[in-house]
């Protein structure tokens, strides 16, 4: 074992580059290029604010991903708890000193760009729990102590994020955490019991929701009850996607987005614009691209020797999957509207930063897939 460590430490830069997952990299590059074009379309076919910023962020965060990848996976394992605590501290910071915008307080100004720590928590929680389940004996997984610890790890950040308030991100953090619990070997009956408990307590949870959140759920159940108000976004989104048809209306020819019928077209509804312009074929193509990325991440997890890398990759693959599913279900009218970006495609620095760091750790796991972690 000692030898192995030494061996891995001796991996040269050249070998690191050689060991990168190129199918994953190419898919991410393709997605990035596509996202710039779609952003260009949201700007009405001009290189304006969103296109420029999105491009700049990609240009900064893509190298950052490679940079992260060049750190040994062991390094990320060692720092997982610390990173988790740092993000918790950031969450506490924004809950007191954060920037306020449209009724919520979830950002901090870093001069170069505005950071949303809750996005980073999506990665941090996976790292933290992956490390925890990596270290714990399989026999102790279902002990009272460990269950208490892992639930605390999940619940503490969620309390801060819900308080911002940001229901969408908190759900995604919770799901990212729960998947590690599942993968780590938590008893299936616990999941079933908690699901039943969740269903029973749903009415109480709803009664604690903010009025606008209740409205979103009602609107989801019946978008036509207020077509110009709360239901407007989802109706217009469905019209845009539906009118795209098989081949779409063509690049830069999406009337719904061009004529401003689409809300939030840069961020949460970016898929709507894409689907209107590129149609069913384009949409399925995009899903395939995402599927390739997810599949490659799972594959890296599968070949990893350490359970930390394995858990992280599987967990992160699931997280990306769930981001996509929540976002697409929302714009397709299958789920109530909860703010959740589409990875890489959506405009937003923090989300892209988190995605790229996550991918970087995955690539690190690939480079060091033979690395054993004690």
């Amino acid at each position, binding site marked *: 074992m000692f030898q192995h460590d030494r061996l891995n430490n001796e991996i040269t830069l050249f070998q690191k580059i050689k060991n990168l997952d190129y199918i994953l990299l190419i898919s991410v590059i393709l997605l990035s290029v596509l996202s710039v074009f779609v952003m260009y379309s949201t700007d009405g076919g001009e290189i304006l604010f969103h296109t420029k910023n999105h491009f700049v962020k990609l240009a900064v965060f893509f190298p950052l991903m490679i940079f992260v990848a060049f750190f040994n996976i062991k390094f990320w394992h060692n720092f997982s708890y610390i990173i988790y605590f740092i993000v918790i501290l950031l969450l506490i910071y924004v809950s007191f000193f954060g920037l306020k915008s449209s009724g919520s307080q979830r950002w901090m100004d870093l001069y170069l760009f505005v950071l949303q720590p809750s996005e980073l928590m999506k990665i941090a929680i996976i790292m933290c729990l992956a490390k925890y389940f990596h270290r714990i004996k399989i026999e102790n997984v279902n002990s009272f102590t460990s269950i208490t610890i892992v639930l605390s790890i999940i619940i503490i950040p969620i309390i801060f994020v819900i308080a911002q308030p940001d229901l969408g991100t908190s759900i995604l953090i919770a799901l990212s955490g729960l998947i590690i619990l599942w993968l780590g070997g938590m008893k299936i009956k616990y999941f079933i019991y908690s699901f039943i408990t969740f269903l029973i307590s749903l009415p109480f949870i709803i009664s604690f929701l903010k009025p606008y959140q209740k409205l979103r759920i009602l609107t989801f159940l019946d978008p036509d009850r207020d077509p110009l108000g709360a239901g407007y976004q989802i109706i217009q989104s469905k019209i845009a996607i539906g009118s795209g048809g098989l081949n779409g209306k063509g690049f830069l020819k999406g009337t719904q987005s061009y004529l401003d019928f689409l809300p939030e077209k840069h961020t949460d509804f970016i898929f709507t614009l894409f689907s209107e312009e590129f149609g069913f074929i384009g949409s399925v193509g995009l899903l395939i691209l995402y599927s390739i990325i997810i599949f490659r991440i799972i594959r890296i997890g599968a070949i990893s020797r350490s359970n930390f890398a394995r858990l992280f990759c599987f967990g992160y693959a699931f997280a990306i999957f769930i981001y996509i599913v929540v976002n697409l279900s929302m714009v*397709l009218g299958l789920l109530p509207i909860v703010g959740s970006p589409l990875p890489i495609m959506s405009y937003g620095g923090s989300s892209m930063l988190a995605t790229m760091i996550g991918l970087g750790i995955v690539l690190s796991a690939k480079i060091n897939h033979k690395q054993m972690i004690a």
Partner: protein
Amino acid sequence: MIKFNSGIRKTDVINRRMFIIGAAKVVVFVGIVARLFSLQINENKKYLTLSDKNRIREWKLPPTRGNIVDYFGNVIAGNLKVYQLHIIPEQVENFNYLLVRLKNLLNLSDKRIARINKLKAELKPWDSIIVSENLSWSQFVKINNYLYDLVGVKPVMTISRNYPFNDVYTHVLGYVSQPNEQEILENEIIQERFVPGMKIGKLGLEKRLENHLIGTNAIQRYEVNAYGKRINQLEHQKGEQGSKIRLTVDTEIQKACGKLLNEKAGSISVMDIYTGDIIAMYSSPSYNPNLFLFGISQDEWQLIRNNPLKPLLNKTLSGLYSPGSTIKPIVALSALENKVIDTKFKVKCTGKIELYGQTFHCWKEKGHGWVSLKNAMKQSCDTYFYEVARLLGVDRLNITAEKFGLGKKVLGDYFDNEKKGLFPNTKWKKNNLGKGWVLGETLITGIGQGYIQSTPLQLCMMTAQIANGGFAVKPKIIVDSNPISYQDAKQSMESGLLFDTDSEELLDKKLFKNQRNIKIVQEAMFASTNERFGTSYKSRIDDPKYQFAGKTGTAQVKRISKRERELDLELEQIPYKDRDHALYVAYGPYVNPRYALSIIVEHGGSGSKAAAPIAKKLFKLIIDRHDLRNKQSNFERITV
């Protein structure tokens, strides 16, 4: 070792559970693809329609009204390009500065400026405000010259109704103006095609033929954004101009009528005695219908409304007058038909007759002596007709008069302001006044005074039906789909039958029992105009081409007192309101007659001095234009 095993077991658990999740992921992705498929492939049409509904807005433009032309195809109600000035507020940099500039350039009133500011507050910033509906060419040029300084100002060219002959046809055509709410609600077609700025017929044929003239809207389709702002124009669907309507009227004659009645109150009607075509129908004074197009100013409206000569009244159709002596041909005809008199029947006129202690005066104080029908008609002897009326009785007279069109609407439904007039009989008086008929009333009815009331157009038709040999004509002002030529109409009439174009059957239109009686009346009317001592002898034309026969009338507007009779004042000495109405009915040429006319000059004095001379001037023109009218054989098919 245990640790190692534990690690292996943990890896197995992770892998197994990953597999379950992986399967679930595939299911969920398939579900999302299915949803995409259902939206984009299955329901694509529905959402495409919704998307188009979102982005496409239609703007209706005002329809272009159909032209109205005279018999010769001259446009008498057409359309004109007008220049308007619009402001698009969102393009304006400094609204107040712009208004000051426009105020100076166009001399806008403060009221107008206030109105523009009010509109600006009400409308969306991209909706245009109409600053001026009708700019003169010089104003339009001026605006175009300063356009660089007037950002947000848009000079616009549009179509507006126009009456090229100004006041000549006002009472025939009416005018158009902005509809009020009730008018929009009452007419479904207007309701459907209404757009702000559209004008509808308010009066006359413009109103009656609204549904034919209105035309269809041009439609402009624009792509709009989510806020309703126009982004670009997609297509332009042309509207159809309303139907063209051709009238029977002759503008030259109509214009001449206007000149002849200049500064007088009165009316002239000219009719084709065979086809019933109305050649001219002029009510004086008239007013300019173009004034109403862009909203008439209060001053101009008051000027028209308060004019003592009542320009707003269509005297031809709505003016009710005692026919005076112009009724005498009918009285004579009725007496002949009922064999009450014959040509040899004579009455001695001493200037007045006494009946039950009441004195009935002849207009000639000294009397006419012994007069026969011809002389009585020629000199318009009242005494003779008192006696004839007494012998005939009002009821028999009423039957003949109504046959010839008195007491009935002439043009039917075409003008909702047309009056029926009245030709009394004993039953009418009993029913309406509750009193029995008095013989004295028969006497004054015999000279066209008393209860009797007629419109100038009725008198014209009455004359036409005497002139054509005693056949019913169907007056019309619109050239219909099956126009009948003058010769055909004459021929079918003289065969005793009239082809009714509406019911498409031959109708017996003889109005007489013995046509000889018509001839006698015609001869008497000829004598009245063309023989010495005839009342309109001075207005005769000797040239047989233009020679006409007629009958004068002087209708009292008030009872003449004994004192006034003795004073025998000149016209100028009597207050305007008390002066007699001057009437004249005539037809010509005497040989092969073609046209009948009626002239009335309100408070013009005697018929022979004020009305008959007008006929003399008019007949020359009417008959000169006859050949032209005949040549106008290219009957255009117009469905009305």
